[in-house]
């Protein structure tokens, strides 16, 4: 067995070209560290990206990398994973790349449950093309292409994923090392498509769009870190809890010191609960929100290719077709 690698072993010599202060730097660090922590091998790891700021990622990770075209990374990665299921294939995408131009491919990757780890860096804006509103931008976002404020209803990455049939959905915050480490390791371990939404701060075009819950000073009260089997508690000294209100079919915040029995216990296999958590405005749910394993696409695909894509016969056995005849001299 090879020696244990460190985060540094997954770092390339390439000069990183994101804007100073960009949330991508922190994500890059967390990913490099997670790769080392899970014992990944650089030669068996591939980062596939589309187009956008996030898509620069493969240049900065010491592994195989494929910087493809806008929106199509899940499709390229699907072909790659089918060609070699032994590889750890990561897809790095953004809100525009993954949910606008590439929405169709993301949908189908998720429903197929192909073994890809898809990281969607959501900053609710188009960065690389200089600040236009994106499919996750909130109504009223002013941008070069929406000077009077955008009027489109944004898509929720989590609801989109569950609607598409995703079997792993998690959330993290770019600068939250602890939360990201946990989410990335679990995403890596999942067999099938693991889909992670990362709240990423675009310092130039959409600064502090997530500040209401990412600000460290008040994080205890604005973030709900869910963990399978644990009660949903948050706040200073964990005094607040989450309860299901059967009258409104929604989640609500309660005082956990008084009604501890009402506090919900997180069940990551419960899709209904996951949908409620995704929509919870405050606190914002983070961590593995939904996880329900099933057979992966590559597993099913290879089961239908009994020879596991190896040639067990020759073209000579097939070339004659159903009937043939011989013409003599």
């Amino acid at each position, binding site marked *: 067995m090879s020696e244990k690698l460190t985060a540094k072993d997954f770092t390339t010599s*390439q000069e990183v070209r994101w804007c100073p202060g960009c949330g991508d730097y922190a994500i890059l660090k967390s990913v490099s560290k997670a790769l080392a922590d899970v014992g990944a091998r*650089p*030669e*068996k*790891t*591939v980062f*596939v990206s589309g187009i956008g700021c996030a898509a620069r990622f*493969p*240049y900065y990770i*010491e*592994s*195989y*990398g*494929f*910087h*493809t*075209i806008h929106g*199509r990374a899940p*499709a*390229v*990665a*699907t*072909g*790659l*994973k*089918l*060609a*070699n299921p*032994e*590889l750890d294939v990561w897809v790095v995408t953004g809100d525009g790349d993954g949910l606008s131009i590439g929405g*169709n*491919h993301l*949908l*189908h990757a998720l429903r197929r449950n192909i073994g890809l780890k898809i990281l969607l860096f959501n900053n609710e804006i188009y960065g690389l093309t200089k600040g236009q509103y994106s499919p996750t931008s909130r109504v009223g976002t002013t941008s070069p292409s929406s000077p009077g404020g955008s009027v489109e209803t944004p898509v929720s990455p989590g609801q989109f994923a569950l609607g598409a049939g995703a079997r792993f959905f998690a959330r993290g915050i770019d600068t939250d090392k602890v939360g990201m480490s946990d989410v990335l390791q679990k995403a890596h371990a999942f067999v099938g498509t693991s889909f992670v939404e990362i709240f990423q701060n675009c310092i130039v075009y959409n600064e502090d769009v997530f500040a209401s819950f990412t600000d460290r000073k008040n994080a205890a009260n604005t973030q709900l870190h869910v963990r399978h089997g644990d009660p949903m508690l948050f706040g200073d000294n964990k005094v607040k809890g989450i309860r299901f209100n059967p009258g409104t079919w929604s989640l609500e915040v309660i005082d956990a010191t008084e009604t501890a029995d009402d506090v919900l216990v997180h069940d990551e296999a419960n899709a209904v609960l996951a949908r409620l958590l995704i929509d919870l405005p405050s606190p914002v749910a983070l961590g593995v929100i939904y996880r329900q394993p099933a057979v992966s696409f590559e597993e099913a*695909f290879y089961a*239908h*290719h*009994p*020879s596991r*894509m*190896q*040639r*067990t*016969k*020759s*073209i*000579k*056995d*097939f*070339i*004659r*077709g159903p*009937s*043939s*005849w*011989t*013409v*003599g*001299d």
Partner: protein
Amino acid sequence: MNKNKDVDSIVVRLAGDSGDGIQLMGSQFAVSTALTGADFATFPDYPAEIRAPVGTTFGVSAYQINLGGGPITTPGDAPDVLVAFNPAALKVSLPMLHKGALVIVNNDAFTARNLAKAGYDADPRESGVLADFQVVEADISHLNLEAVKEFGLSKSEGGRCKNFWALGLLLWMFNRDFVSVEEWIRRRLAGKPTLRDANIKALHAGHAYGETAALAASLSQIQIPAAKPKPGEYRSITGAEALALGIAAAGELADRPVLFCSYPITPASPLLHRISHLPELGVGTFQAEDEIAAIAAAIGASYGGMIGVTSSSGPGIALKTEAMGLAVSAELPLVIVNWQRGGPSTGLPTKTEQSDLYQAVYGRNADTPIPVVSASTSGECFAMAIEAVRIAIRHMTPVILLADGYLSNAAEPWRIPDLSSFPPIETNPVPEFGEDPQRKAFTRGVTSYGRPWITPGMPELMHRVGGLEKDVESGHISYDPANHQSMTDLRAAKVQSVANYIPEQMLESGPDSGDLVVVGWGSTYGPIYQATRATRASFVHLRHLNPLPGNLGELLGRFDKVLVPEMNAGQLATLLRDKLGANPVSFSKVTGQPFLISELVEKIESLRGELS
């Protein structure tokens, strides 16, 4: 036609509603023809609608087959025999027939309602429009129902046996054995014994009907001599079948698995269906969510070390364009098959055309050259699939293989090749691992410009590929102006270098210099072959369209005139002007139908008239 006539070749057209089982009847007739040793060519001509409104002219499905002592290279200009299942089928087919042709009509379908639907004011059997033909009226529907009565089928189930009744009659007329058809029915309907037996009964009944004295006066048997082809083992094959086998054979020759990634589209889907049956040959099939995903997944597969192949028709190919540029930039092998159809837009999905040549050669953003090859006949789809994969792997480039809707469905006898006659497909050597794998990944062959096919999983060779311009030597991203010039030149030189590996252009037939040469490409091979043989004109047929064979300019220069017949508005003619400075005469046909031999002969003769 005269009784018990011996003829060299004969053209039969079967026509009916798209739900009448015409295509099935035609293909079974082709197989039983093949088994007698006769040569043949077929032309399935069917509507875009799966079940078009019954009885209408636009819902007519037809299958034409030309059979004879050969060589037969086209489905024939004008039918000698027509089997018309209803008035609409008769109406659509009549203008195509030879005078004196035998017309067999299904009497039962000539109701007032069906006549009106076909747009006949008067019954054609009585109005005199059939005066030039020999007409045999048979109560096909009725006789068929009588024959299968004992099986207790519903009227519609029983009625659906009538294609086999008519096939039985046809087999009798051509003195064919019905054993192979019967075997086929037994296999196909193994799980449905009643239907199986009813169809076999219908087949026998049609055959017996031909033999009975009732018809002996009007109908005769036709003797077709067996062809005298090159000795060897033969089978009947369509372009889709040959291309599927060719791709699998290429995988074997390269010793790599193949991932075929495709999205359903007419007329490309037959290849998707055929190739899905070859897992034992290391061929996987991925039905993608759209055309773009199909090519993207094929690129991903190639990046992962399999042979990535995608297939579509013109509109789908248009969607794949951006991804083709990615494969060019990343220098990955890939085969893109285009089954051309009539356009623009949705156009004529089930009709053939060869109008995507510009798209293949020129149709991408930026300077993005891609090698282009094409198949001339159904059988040739096999060899050209191998050729496309060979070029893709040697030069590490996407390759476009042009076929068309006609080839996809048309069957012909095919001499089964010996795979050992194809040299193995060599992969460029992978370097030893060590320093600077990025540079190693983009260190290209001196004559082919092909880079090593390094795939994820290989230790110590981690590198990055992508669509951003890269340094010509180090392989790292580069925005340097002079470097982009070098990379653009290199991509052009790479595609041009293919010309150094392909055979010199040969003449198919005719003298090697003179007044006129006819230049073709793709599925026009058959009619041009016959027309040039009849007129003793020289014939050059291209399989490599980008780059063109190195000697082509010199070869064409030996003739006073170059005639280019194509099923488009003159695209090869433009290409020859552009690449060779030639001045060809374009002969264009875009009716969705293949060229007739007679129209080519006429064109050749009129051009010769101008010359003399």
